[in-house]
Structures are given as structure tokens and as C-alpha cells.
């Protein structure tokens, strides 16, 4: 290459560099012409020493300028979303495993140690009506929808980690789509069930001194004593309030998530999702215990929700005050025999 050609190349490169610098300098003032002003963070973003994490830490959002109608699309990065996503991908999976698998393991150990709590002397022939048809209906409405909501909700949290490798992409996608539809729309029967249970059973679930004594005696689970109890014992009242308060919290946060941006912004929805998931996991753990004691954990307990009538001996053991009151009320000293 001749020296003249070399000089020409250097000059051309210099002119190109100068023109690029001038062009970039001219774009800066345009920021005041219609573009959203950058958030005042005190940071000099022109400095090369600015680190990404520092920038993300001080700015709530990294936004640009767009001309399409959906102005939300102007946000390129929402730093809080990274924390939320990291929590969902990491700690939340472990918390889920602890709540679900931990509770199942606890119940398994309890069953291995204690076994099924039997009716002393075996089942009798007389029965007592414990729950009427409407009470059983609202209980099952809540329980059935709750089971589907719990499974579909767990899929949102852990499906990708647990089910996707087992099912494959296509099956997991189909399952997740139906699970999400179920989660959305079966929430309404669940809410209806919660409201009905609250209205019908509230008067039986006001805590009192009898419950304190019930807890002091271990609820009959520790040792062989059966502390006196009304229609609902202390443990059942705890379950009632977990369902009512937890269900209320799930309803509020769930509706905020179901209708995006109607109630709150993206940060609010991320917080709602954290609260929704946390409360749901606590409720899942509590309901596993409730299902256990209402089925394999105690002889005769399931009858109350099966056909509404319980063994009189069971009623006298576990709800002695209620059984005495019912018998006195009806004047029925020879209750219906078991079918």
C-alpha cells in the first residue's frame, strides 16, 4: 500500500469518527422533545464506571420511548421483577417442598406412631345427625374446588421443575393451560363456599374457655383423654379461621392477579403473587392435616361428611357437650340406628 493511500484511509477514518460523534451529540437534546424524562437518580449514566446492578438498584424501571398505544411496553427492565423471579425460581420452590412434603412426612410419622384413633369399644348402633345436607354441600363445594385450586396453583409454582421433565413439553403445556383455566374460574365456587361456611358456621366457631382447656389437654391426641368439646373443638375452630381468613386473603390477592392492572400495578401484582403463594402454601399444609384427621386419622370422623350422621359413641367421645345438647334438645334418648 502506498503512503498516499495510507494517509487517505486515516483521513477518511477520522472524518467518519467525527461525523459519528456529532450525530450522537445531536440526538441528546431530542430527549426533551416528547421523550419521557429519565428518572432523577443522581447518577451520571454517561460515566463508564456505572455498573448495571447499581443502575438497576437506583432506578425503579428502565424505560424507553415508543409510539405504539400500549405505553407499558416502553419499560425495558423492571428491576423488582428480577428479585421476584429469582425468589420464584429458588426459595419459593424450597418453601413449597417444605410445606407440602414436610407436612406429608409429619403426618406419616404421626400415623406410624399413633395409628388410627379408634372409637373406644368399637362402633355402636346409634347415630346422631351432625351436619345437615346444606352444611355438607357447602363443605364439599369448598373442598372440591380447593383441591383443584391447590393442584393447579402448585403447578404454577413448581410445575416447571417437577412435572415438565416427567410429562414433556406438549403434555405439560396442555395440562398447564387447563389448570390455569380451572384455577381462574373455579375460584368463584371456592369463594362462594368460603362465604357460605363463614355465614353458617361462624356462631359455632367463636373461641371460648372450653377451647383453651381442649388445647391444654392436647385435644385428645396426646394420651387417651377426650377433653369436652362443643360442635367444633379448638382444633376445628383453628381450621375454620385458617380457611376463612386465608381464603379471604387468597380471594383479594387472587382477584388482583386475575385482572391485571385493574387493581394494582406490576409491583403490586408481584407482591400479591408472593402473598397469594405464601398463604396458599400454609393453607395446603393445614388442609392436609384436616384431611388426614377427617379420614384415615380417626375412626368415624368421615361419617360426618359422608351422610351427615355420626356414631353416638364417637360424638360423646369427641364432642361431648354438643352430643349432650343435641340429645337434650330433641329429647331423643334412642337416636337413629346406624344404617
Amino acid at each position, binding site marked *: 500500500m502506498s503512503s498516499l493511500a495510507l494517509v487517505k484511509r486515516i483521513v477518511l477514518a477520522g472524518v467518519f469518527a467525527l461525523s459519528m460523534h456529532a450525530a450522537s451529540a445531536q440526538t441528546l437534546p431530542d430527549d426533551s422533545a416528547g421523550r419521557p424524562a429519565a428518572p432523577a437518580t443522581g447518577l451520571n449514566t454517561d460515566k463508564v464506571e456505572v455498573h448495571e446492578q447499581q443502575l438497576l438498584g437506583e432506578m425503579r424501571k428502565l424505560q424507553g420511548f415508543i409510539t405504539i398505544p400500549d405505553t407499558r411496553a416502553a419499560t425495558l427492565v423492571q428491576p423488582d*421483577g428480577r428479585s421476584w423471579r429469582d425468589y420464584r425460581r429458588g426459595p419459593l420452590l424450597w418453601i413449597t417442598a417444605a410445606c407440602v412434603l414436610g407436612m406429608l412426612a409429619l403426618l406419616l410419622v404421626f400415623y406410624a406412631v399413633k395409628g388410627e384413633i379408634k372409637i373406644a369399644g368399637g362402633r355402636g348402633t346409634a347415630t346422631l345427625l351432625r351436619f345437615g345436607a346444606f352444611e355438607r354441600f357447602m363443605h364439599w363445594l369448598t373442598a372440591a374446588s380447593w383441591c383443584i385450586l391447590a393442584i393447579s396453583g402448585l403447578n404454577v409454582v413448581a410445575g416447571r421443575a417437577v412435572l415438565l421433565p416427567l410429562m414433556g413439553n406438549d403434555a405439560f403445556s396442555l395440562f398447564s393451560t387447563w389448570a390455569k383455566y380451572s384455577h381462574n374460574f373455579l375460584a368463584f365456587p371456592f369463594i362462594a363456599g368460603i362465604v357460605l361456611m363463614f355465614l353458617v358456621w361462624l356462631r359455632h366457631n367463636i373461641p371460648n374457655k372450653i377451647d383453651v382447656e381442649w388445647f391444654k389437654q392436647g385435644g385428645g391426641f396426646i394420651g387417651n383423654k377426650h377433653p369436652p368439646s362443643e360442635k367444633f373443638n379448638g382444633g376445628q375452630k383453628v381450621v375454620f379461621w385458617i380457611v376463612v381468613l386465608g381464603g379471604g386473603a387468597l380471594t383479594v390477592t387472587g382477584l388482583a392477579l386475575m385482572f391485571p392492572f385493574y387493581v394494582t400495578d406490576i409491583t403490586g401484582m408481584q407482591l400479591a403473587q408472593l402473598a397469594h403463594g405464601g398463604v396458599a402454601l400454609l393453607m395446603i399444609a393445614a388442609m392436609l392435616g384436616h384431611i388426614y384427621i377427617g379420614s384415615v386419622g380417626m375412626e368415624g370422623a368421615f361419617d360426618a361428611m359422608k351422610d351427615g350422621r355420626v356414631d353416638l359413641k364417637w360424638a360423646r367421645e369427641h364432642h361431648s357437650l354438643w352430643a349432650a345438647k343435641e340429645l337434650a334438645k330433641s329429647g331423643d334418648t334412642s337416636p337413629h340406628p346406624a344404617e
Partner: protein
Amino acid sequence: MRMFLLAVVVMIAGGIGAKVALDTIQIPASVGFSTGGARPEPE
């Protein structure tokens, strides 16, 4: 267990009814779902 079966029927009917009602008043519920890998939605 008749009340259980009735509750399941009412639950399904209630779910379908909720979907129809929301579609009718044109408030679409979010059907987007994240299984842990989706990026945060921009605001």
C-alpha cells in the same frame, strides 16, 4: 355422598358460569400463566 356429587356439579356449573359472565361483561381474566421461567411483564 350425594352432597359431594351435587357440590361437584355446582362447582363445574359455577366455573363455567363465571367464565361466561366475565366474557359477557367483557372483563377478560388473565389466562397467561408463568411456570417459573417467564420474564417479568413490563408495565
